[in-house]
């Protein structure tokens, strides 16, 4: 299946290679560099590149291209999904997945890749198993290691691989047993010029941080499970229980993991928490334009909007912006042509406004299209869909854990057309 993987930085530096079958010369990556050059943005590199004898399947994440080489038919999503899993594992191990961290931990990275694939077929991809095999580096451990000369490879053999629930390691012990669930919802929306919703849906995830001893069996139930249109689960969740009773029953992995993600589609009315009044216009003569944006709260269920940011991708002819904001700060980058207005908390009594003039390249025709606005925001303590966790029950263990649920709503791909 997967022959080799090359890691290439955005600058074109090939800094790691790993082969699972015979070695393939790194010159194969020239095909990739060619495609990379052709696509102006890194986003636009085709995920699958054909070369005379191989196929390159690549993903772009955290400014790194993960390029895999395959030789025969394999579902492309299989490879893409695996590469993303690799990136997530790095993130899990080193806190972030960047060129520097990978270079700093090159031996661990290599060992991880060795364990994750065998002859190109995924072997151990569960973070709980991997952590048993190769311990993640911590500052304390690396200090201890240098003094005592001990290593970061697990002494015990990975028993998790043998169990029927490979995602949980055995023999977990905590003095404080706790289980936290974060319900995070993102609103994807397209609003048109007049403010009407063209399309809106909610994408939610429940992230869990479960630190419970032994082998607990949890059941999470919702007040209103019928809200959820479409769900996907971590492999630990029992599908059948969900299908018949609409409860989430599972033996959790240890530590942080994403329990489920769900989707509430456009058919249900999605509350739009913010409205934008905008007027961006470019003048026929004088190579200038005007911009006036006001943001106000719409359906916020009585909560405050925080971390409000408006981003505008300006047309290429806009040279500079001379604006004044009643709240927050704005910044226009003349190279990337991106205007960012960081508003912060929204005060419903005094609506923030950004106003002023834009100067265009002289002589160039005025832009055809007005740029669309991308909005970012956050609402604490609210799931915008109204989803509510009813209760969490622990079976199989005797202790009483501490349980907590947190709700956050954010703007996902929230776009206002102008």
């Amino acid at each position, binding site marked *: 299946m997967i022959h080799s993987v090359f890691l290439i930085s955005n600058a074109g530096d090939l800094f790691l290679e790993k082969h699972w079958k015979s070695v393939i010369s790194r010159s194969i990556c020239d095909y990739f560099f060619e495609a990379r050059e052709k696509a102006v943005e890194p986003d636009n590199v085709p995920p*699958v590149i054909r070369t005379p004898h191989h196929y390159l399947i690549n993903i772009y994440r955290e400014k790194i291209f993960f390029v895999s080489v395959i030789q025969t038919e394999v*579902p492309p999503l*299989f490879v893409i999904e695996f590469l993303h899993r690799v990136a997530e594992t790095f993130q899990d191990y080193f806190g972030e997945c960047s060129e520097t961290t990978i270079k700093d931990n090159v031996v661990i990275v290599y060992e991880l890749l060795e364990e994750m694939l065998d002859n190109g077929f995924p072997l151990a991809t569960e973070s709980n198993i991997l952590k048993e095999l190769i311990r993640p580096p911590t500052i304390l451990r690396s200090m201890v290691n240098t003094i005592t000369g001990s290593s970061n490879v697990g002494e015990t053999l990975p028993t998790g691989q043998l169990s029927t629930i490979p995602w949980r390691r055995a023999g977990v012990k905590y003095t404080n047993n706790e289980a936290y669930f974060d319900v995070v919802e993102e609103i994807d929306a*397209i609003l048109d010029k007049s403010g009407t919703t063209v399309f809106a849906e909610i994408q939610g995830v429940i992230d869990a941080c479960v630190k419970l001893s032994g082998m607990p069996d949890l059941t999470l139930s919702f007040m209103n499970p019928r809200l959820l249109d479409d769900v*996907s689960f971590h492999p630990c969740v029992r599908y059948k229980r969900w*299908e018949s009773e609409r409860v989430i029953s599972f033996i959790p992995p240890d530590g942080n993991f994403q329990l489920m993600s769900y989707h509430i589609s456009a058919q249900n009315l999605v509350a739009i928490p913010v409205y934008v009044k905008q007027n961006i216009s470019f003048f026929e003569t004088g190579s200038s334009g005007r911009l006036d944006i006001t943001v106000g709260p719409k359906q916020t269920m009585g909560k405050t909007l925080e971390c409000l940011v408006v981003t505008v991708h300006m047309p290429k002819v806009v040279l500079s912006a001379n604006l004044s904001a009643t709240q927050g700060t704005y910044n226009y980058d003349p190279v990337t042509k991106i205007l960012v207005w960081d508003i912060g908390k929204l005060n419903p009594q005094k609506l923030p406004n950004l106003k002023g003039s834009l100067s265009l390249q002289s002589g160039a025709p005025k832009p055809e299209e007005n740029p669309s606005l991308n909005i970012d925001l956050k609402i604490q303590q609210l799931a915008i869909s109204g989803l509510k966790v009813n209760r969490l029950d622990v079976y199989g263990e005797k202790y009483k854990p501490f349980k907590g649920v947190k709700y956050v709503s954010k703007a996902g791909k929230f776009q206002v057309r102008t």
Partner: protein
Amino acid sequence: MQKLLQLPVNAVNIVKSVQGVVQGQEEALSPVLTPDSSPQNWYSAVQPEELRHLRSGGMGGGGEGSEDRPGLEEGLTSVQSQPLRHDDLKEMLDSNKDSLKLEAMKRIVAMIARGKNTSDLFPAVVKNVACKNIEVKKLVYVYLVRYAEEQQDLALLSISTFQRGLKDPNQLIRASALRVLSSIRVTIIVPIMMLAIKEAASDMSPYVRKTAAHAIPKLHSLDPEQKDQLIEVIEKLLADKTTLVAGSVVMAFEEVCPDRIDLIHKNYRKLCNLLIDVEEWGQVVIINMLTRYARTQFLNPNINESLLEDSSEKAFYASDDEEDEDKKAEAAALVKRKPYVMDPDHRLLLRNTKPLLQSRNAAVVMAVAQLYFHLAPKAEVGIIAKALVRLMRSHSEVQYVVLQNVATMTIKRRGMFEPYLKSFYIRSTDPTQIKILKLEVLTNLANETNISTILREFQTYIKSMDKDFVAASIQAIGRCATNIGEVRDTCLNGLVQLLSNRDELVVAESVVVIKKLLQMQPEQHSDIIKHMAKLIDNIQVPMARASILWLIGEYCEHVPKIAPDVLRKMAKTFTNEEDIVKLQIINLAAKLYLTNSKQTKLLTQYVLNLAKYDQNYDIRDRARFIRQLIVPTDKSGALSKYAKKLFLALKPAPVLESPFKDRDHFQLGSLSHLLNAKAGGYQELPEWPESAPDPSVRNVEIPDWSKCTSRKDRKEKKLDKPFYSDSEGDSGPTESADSESDSGSGSESASASDESGSGSESEESGEETESEKEEEDEEKEKKRKKRLDKTKAKKPAEESAERCAIHTSYQINTIAPSGSIKMYELLHRITGEGLAVEYCFSRQPFSPDPNMVAVQIQFTNNTNSETKNLHIEEPRLQSGMRIREFAEIEVLAAGESVTVVMGIDFCDSTQAANFQLCTHTRKFFVSIQPPVGELMTPVFLTENDFKKEQGKLMGMNEISEKLTLGEKCVNEHVIVERVTATANLSRVPCGSDKECRFAGKTVSSGCLVLVTVTTKEGGRAQLTVNCEKMVIGTMLVKDIMQALSQ
């Protein structure tokens, strides 16, 4: 101290090879190696005194490093030329301190990771293969696997270590020894590997067996001659019952012998049942393999519909090969004499893969989606749409692949994605390649009803800053216009408006698209052609100018006054035009000369003269050729007589069709599909067989139960079953309380595996779990069997299909088993003059419109002649009621049956839907009246929700009746069966065994319907129905009462 002593030795080496040391030193300074390396101190100590001058000398002399690409790590140059540079590492490896060895190995691995050659260290490293320190050992393995191929002889030194490891009492050591051994690509050890794999395949530990499965493709690629022996091993491992092995062995099967479909038969049902517990990567491989398997073994579930489908498609994508398909379908229809009945094994596969649509792994979801697309009956394919739309939220690479597949699916089954139209709307921040794919999907989804929304959406796209995307949008509009006749004029007008756009690229693209559209009906559009003629003064894009000139030339008869004038203008600017424009000017001149030689003779001469001396020889050639053809001279041959026919022949309109058309002959989700070309190792998706192969090949002998009953008691408590695959039982109506045992088993198995980690015990425990599992399986089998007896499975014939049939009986609360669906008569054979029509309420959701009740209609032609054009006419409906007709059945051959599904929105009333059923000769008045129970669809509620909802529907909305249960209603089970047979409701879990609760909602308005049956002593019972619609409530009470008191 030891390090300091090494110094002189190294100093000598430095002198010998200047370059090497310089690089070695840079090596040491690189960030990767610094953090915990103590030798680094030594390096930095050396640097000031001895190295400074050496380095400068090195730079002058060697210069090898300067060849590096600037972006790459320094010192990336090949290392072979400095044989001595790794001496320090060698010495560290030779030392007897583990920490030094570890340090050395870490540095070596870091070098390998960056693609440097360290093969000269092979002897020093391989010595440490038996090192006690586990981390050193691991790194040595990594090194060994990387270089063994290059250093075959030396690699053999390590083999004995692994052979010893294969005999280790600890299963994990056995497994890792096999894993490394099989990864060493040295041909000499093939026999050893073969032996090791065979042995491991019958190991006690499933983990070792899994490793054996992984080793099979490795050996196969090393020595393909071992294939036959390996197939034997695969056959053996396929019979394995553990989930751990299943995925890996199917992977081996796919790589070694994908065509040996016969090996799957006996394991088919087992694989289906285990599927949900297999790890996600294995699931993908198994599902893809089973898709192929099913295509060879089962019949096409859409065989009856394929006829209709083709004819409906034809309107849009008419092409020649369509007819062939038609013929094929017809032929297939002729072969089939009976109505289609799905093989229970086929159903089993569909049912067991369905929950995996909820997987977090995009590859699994895609695999299930393609399985449904290729195997499921048309009515059921719809469920995959939602999951695929969900994947669109994922990373852009995932989106890219999913959209490609969706684009292919939308061509074949447009209805499926229509409800999700808006999910494909484009954001300005999407990458261009995603935008273009979304556009493709939107274009495919366009039909008469949604075209106006789509066109409005396209209008916003045209204003985008992304010019490639704008061009694609304009083409998309063009395609919509050709496909949907009603909007052709609107589109054309819109495109004409674009002609006054400021952006030249937009104008040019529009001109090209308009040209194609006009070709379809030029007569009505002479004013557009005139408008375009005016544009020639302003547009500069050569392609667009050429298109306009071609149009004017082609339709010069429609614009007789303008055409010569355009030619006059073009003659003036001829010399400054681009080549393609020049060619079109000559073309225009020729056509005008033929139609209107009086006015244009001189102009044409002039243009041809200009062209004669053009720099481009193509243009000179063309001019010469045309002159000979159109200007009759005495020398010119017979051809010039036909000049008019040659130039002004009627040209067929271009067909604008999706690039994704016909891509579905590749298995969806595959690399080959993505590339639209066969990739190496791609296995063709076979066509459906015309008659089903013998289904009994999949039967597995059921082990004799009497044997194990005595042992059963002994180990009753110890359960080690696959984690979730058997939990269907739990979800069934009678066992919801059982879920506890499930969790118990989970912890049990984990603790068992805990023990197995500790050496010698493992084998025993491995064995134990094995046998337990078998017993457990058998036990369960027995339990099921008993229950099956109780429920009195309808047909004894189904016994042969044991396992799968059992599943059906569990799902009684959601999907009624096909046998129990009541058929109603719509048209009797005699009144219908040989045409018999029956209908039933299939209780499947009607995918095109969720507010409609799906009515399955079966036509049987009992006459001796064909019946043609079966369709519905003149529905006479109560206000608010709606009908979604089935597509017309063109031909129903004598003796044939065909089943179609139509949707009716009864508006939650039991009023009949009246309509005419027409054949090519006759019309019949018929009506469908639904029983009240069919007007609802099941809803899943928890006990709490049920009570809460019930609390809201009190008073007027509650209807309660006392009744006496019929003689046969002895237990809960019968009650459940009776109620669910009467009304399409689902069971709500309930704590008390005296009560049965059911919930559903009305199909049309979605009002909740809650039913409670409380049994009392002496066969008395109380029935309560809560529903906002009182009429429905009253009628439902009546029907259920009747059903229960029988």
